[in-house]
């Protein structure tokens, strides 16, 4: 099923694509299953959302909730024993899932770019930075002259606050933050419609984290791409994104603006996430989420969250799988507590 999100919040972004009503990214019913020796694990279950140009979506959830699988599925980079079992990923009008493999390769970086999780090891140690950027350009554009490639490189490097001279260096000569910036620079080389950043700051110190986040925000507004930020640092998300999507056991359980999410989370899991954040008024008191994330091989019946849910003891939660519902105001929540029209029960 599909959730159409009209602009959730009036934003002033670059006007180029603003008058286009069709969202730049539309994910519909994406499903990924891993066929392991222990059984089938549904890593993504009927995930749907849309994103407009210039918008930033933060994707949060516990480890194993499907965040990274989501990124890989959108790039069509799920490797066996995993398989994309259904769904569409429409970028700028083209469904990536139905492209032949050759065209999909061309679409990577060009339409949809990926900024890797482990930037520390994501650059080839025996190639100069410039060559690793240039080969990305050469693989997608034909007939680029040497000087135009050169121009693109220095422009991309400057956009992420790096000296163009970095192109002549090797990865081991750069710091962690610089490597991450190089990966961002590669991500924007071809000005893609969608950028997926998979925990782009996880290996960096707090100061560098902030700088890298600011860099992502700046280059995004420069090329007006839609950005999906994957991570579990809610604090960092709160500062950086427009919308937040919460994943639980392979499902998208809530999608709303960052303000709504932090002031009035709807899904009980989101509520637990928000209340587990350290709070200035309530020093020293941490409310963890009781219970453990379920194994995808043995998902609880009905709503996968019901064993940990404070409202999960009724028959409905235990036996019936909840469907995504649109609440008044355009928020999406996948929970039995809200009826078909999205009004809260109780």
């Amino acid at each position, binding site marked *: 099923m599909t959730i159409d999100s009209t602009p959730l919040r009036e934003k002033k972004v670059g006007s180029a694509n603003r008058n286009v009503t069709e969202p730049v990214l539309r994910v519909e019913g994406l499903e990924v299953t891993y066929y392991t020796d222990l059984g089938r694990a549904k890593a993504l279950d009927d995930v749907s959302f849309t994103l407009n140009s210039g918008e930033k979506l933060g994707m949060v959830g516990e480890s194993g909730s499907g965040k990274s699988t989501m990124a890989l599925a959108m*790039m069509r*980079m799920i490797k066996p024993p995993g398989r994309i079992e259904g769904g569409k990923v429409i970028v700028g009008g083209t469904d990536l899932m139905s492209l032949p493999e050759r065209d999909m*390769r*061309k*679409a*990577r*970086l*060009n339409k949809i770019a*990926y900024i*890797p999780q*482990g930037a*520390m*090891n*994501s*650059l*080839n*140690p*025996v*190639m100069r930075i410039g060559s690793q950027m240039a*080969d*990305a350009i050469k*693989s*997608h554009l034909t007939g680029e002259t040497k000087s135009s490639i050169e121009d693109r490189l220095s422009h991309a490097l400057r956009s992420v606050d790096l000296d163009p001279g970095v192109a002549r260096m*090797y990865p*081991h*000569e750069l710091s962690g933050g610089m490597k991450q910036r190089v*990966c961002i620079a*590669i991500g924007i080389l071809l000005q893609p419609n969608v950028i997926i950043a998979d925990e782009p700051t996880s290996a960096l110190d707090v100061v560098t984290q902030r700088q890298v986040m600011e860099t992502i925000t700046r280059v995004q507004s420069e090329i007006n791409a839609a950005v999906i930020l994957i991570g579990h640092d809610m604090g960092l998300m709160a500062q950086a994104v427009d919308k937040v999507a919460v994943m639980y056991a392979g499902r998208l359980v809530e999608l709303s603006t960052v303000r709504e999410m932090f002031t009035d989370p709807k899904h009980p899991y989101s509520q637990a996430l928000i209340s587990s954040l350290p709070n200035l008024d309530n020093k020293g008191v941490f409310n963890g989420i009781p219970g453990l994330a379920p194994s995808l091989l043995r998902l609880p019946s009905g709503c996968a969250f019901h064993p940990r849910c404070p409202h999960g003891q009724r028959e409905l939660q235990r036996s019936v799988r909840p469907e995504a519902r649109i609440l008044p105001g355009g928020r999406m929540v996948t929970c039995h507590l809200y009826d078909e029209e999205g009004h809260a029960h109780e």
Partner: protein
Amino acid sequence: MNVKVIVKRLLFFVLVVWAASTIVFFVPRLSTRNAIRERFGELARSGGFSPGDIEKLIESMNKSFGLDKPLLEQYWQYLNNIVHLDFGYSLSKYPSTVTEVIAQALPWTIGLLLVTTVLSFVIGTLLGAVSAWPRAPGWLRGIATPFILLTGVPPVIMGILLVFFIGFRLQWLPLGGAYSPGVVPTWSWPFFFDLMQHQVLPALSLILGSVGGWVLSMRGMGITIQGEDYVNYAEHKGLSAGRIFRDYYLRNALLPQVTGLALALGTVITSAVVVEGLFGLPGIGTALNLAIRANDFPVIYGIVIFITLAIALLMLILEFVYPLLDPRIRDS
């Protein structure tokens, strides 16, 4: 690479060669055997010498080989000779000098051993890389398997089997020798063709058993490299499979292989003794073999020191090539 590092490497090279030569000098002198006395003893047994004459002869020989001087002086003279690549005269092939003996044998060994070692390195490395590459077609990945099975067969056994089946039973190729008897070596196509025919079986016996080793080490490395983030990210960048294979996968998996190649080149001489002996090829291995049988000490010295020099030189070259392959080494 800065000057300091280069000087350090060169000094180390000199040190290795010096240490090896010193060992080679002193170890035989610990033995009570006397090469000159043994040689003349042999002559005496075939008759025609009175014992007094032989003592005189030995004395004059000792003098001309400098063996009457104090040990340290001999040692100094010996080091001096090595620097000038002068190992004196061969005892068994007098009046040829040791350098001449080596120079005559060397092209054969380089031609066969060096070529086969490099060839099996290239074949094995490529097969290993392909066999670990998940996107390679199945039949291509399967080619490596028979070579892995042959890994355990030593060159001698392989050589005997090849000579028996292909040379003796099928009579497709000559049994041995460097070229057909009666043929005069000239720079001509017919001679070259004859030469090559004689090299096929020795080359096969060296290659067949050694490709598997390269396949295995490359395969292991290839599997490791495939799991690296940068190979994965290269695919995310939308690079073509060929480019990822060449620049990201092969290039990185190759680094330990190159070290292996240098080490393998060092052991070339061991195979040479065996294979050249088996096929009757006039290379360094055969020269060493003959010298040992004939107690031809100058030639043994010469060849051992020459091998030491060659290996040390290969290592030195590797030290300079490796930073070109792996930039991370340059700064450390």
